[in-house]
């Protein structure tokens, strides 16, 4: 497998018989992440091996994608400065700045 396949998560993404949207890039805590148009932030982060999307306020415990369908709110992240956005129901877009949600996040 080519190095590029690994970095864009093609070991996780299904390859056969899939037509992907345009390739784009966003950042997660400053690191570049590759996504394809139509993918959620959660899908792209999982494909990139990012499992911890937030740190709980009271116990400092790691949380990530749990239900994956918008119900549990465990995958909340900061997107372009706005805290408590669900990674699983937000589509990845070019240049988006995604950050780990630490505690309650900044006040809006």
């Amino acid at each position, binding site marked *: 497998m080519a190095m590029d396949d690994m970095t864009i998560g093609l070991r996780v993404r299904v390859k056969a018989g899939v037509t992907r949207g345009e390739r784009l890039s966003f950042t997660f805590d400053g690191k570049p992440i590759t996504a394809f148009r139509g993918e959620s932030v959660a899908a792209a982060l999982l494909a990139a091996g990012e499992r911890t999307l937030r740190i*709980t*306020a*009271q116990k400092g415990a790691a949380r990530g994608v749990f239900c994956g369908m918008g119900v549990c*709110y465990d995958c*909340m992240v900061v997107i372009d400065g706005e805290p*408590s956005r669900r990674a699983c129901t937000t589509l990845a877009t070019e240049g988006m700045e995604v950050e780990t949600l630490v505690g*309650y996040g900044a006040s*809006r």
Partner: protein
Amino acid sequence: MSAPTDLGRADVAIIGGGLMGCATAYYLAKGGVDVALIDRTEINREASGANAGSLHLQVYIHPHFPDDWIDRIRPTIVLMREAAKGWATIEAELDADCGVRLGGGVWVAESPEEMALIEKKVAAERAGGVMSEIVMSNELRSIAPYLGEHVIGGSFFKGEGFANPLLVAPAHARAAKRYGARFFTNAPVTGITRESSGGFSISTGRAVFRASRVVAAAGAWTAELGRMVGLRLPVEGHAIQVQVTDGRPLVMLDHLLQHVGLGLTLKQSPNGTFILGGGWPAYYDRQQQRNTPLQNSMMGNAWVAARTVPAVGEAQLVRAWGGVGSGTPDGRPILGESSQVKGFYVCYAPLGFTMGPICGRILAEHFLTGEATVPLAPFTPDRFLEQAS
């Protein structure tokens, strides 16, 4: 056709596995009574498990209620006083975590008219032994520093707070089982008939259960059970909703907050989430037999909450769900035995989450000793008899 399956018999059959029924089962079983509880689905599935957890130990009133509302419900205040004592010791009584937090209860007003209603409420409460207090502007803000600018005053009762609806009824059920109470779930009662021996035969579809006495503990469905034995028990249910936010810094001091004019119950759980309620209407989906939240109610409720406690405006709503509210024409519980159908008891109260444990205890006391800490006469099911004709 084969004969219905015989599920057995008990001295007392309780119909309804909400908090009211589970608490009645617990106190009766603890008193040595042979008791069985029957529920159409599983325990804690309706109002007891889907409410916002508020412990309403001050009189629940709003400006659109009838003018004589406080006079109608006045006998209930003594029951509320006993309920407050009960909630303070319930976790020790059941040896279980019920999520009880009694930081105190705050009612707020934004206008002199709303304040006048709170003053009327406090006077009635104090006369009945619920020692709430009027607190104005600065003093109120020292008790509840999280309040927004629109509040001019209100009342405070230090025994109020909240509990976790997911824990309370199941804790009673577990404790009841320790004393030998039996539970039959997924058994919808379809008929109750009097046997020649004087007892009751309770049909649940293809099965039948026999009991010397029956306790109707069916909350919003009490009227249906009444009809099965020919009694008018005018309990009406309605769909209401609750919503919850993401976790935010703790500001609300384990208080229950209520807004007399705008319809709000608000509290903050130990994990920081705000729980928004206040009887906002939900939609009853007849086909699915489910109460579904309405977006207008979500927005209105959130608006009142953020107006009253600005920190709520920082939070994000994460979930809303439908629950069940219910009431009687005089706003009082229905507790006790019917004189028309001997052996048929009713255990129902509006604000049933708050009143469930005390009603179960009082009914069991009355059942076991013929007397109770609180006089039951104002709550008798017989008071609806003359209106039946």
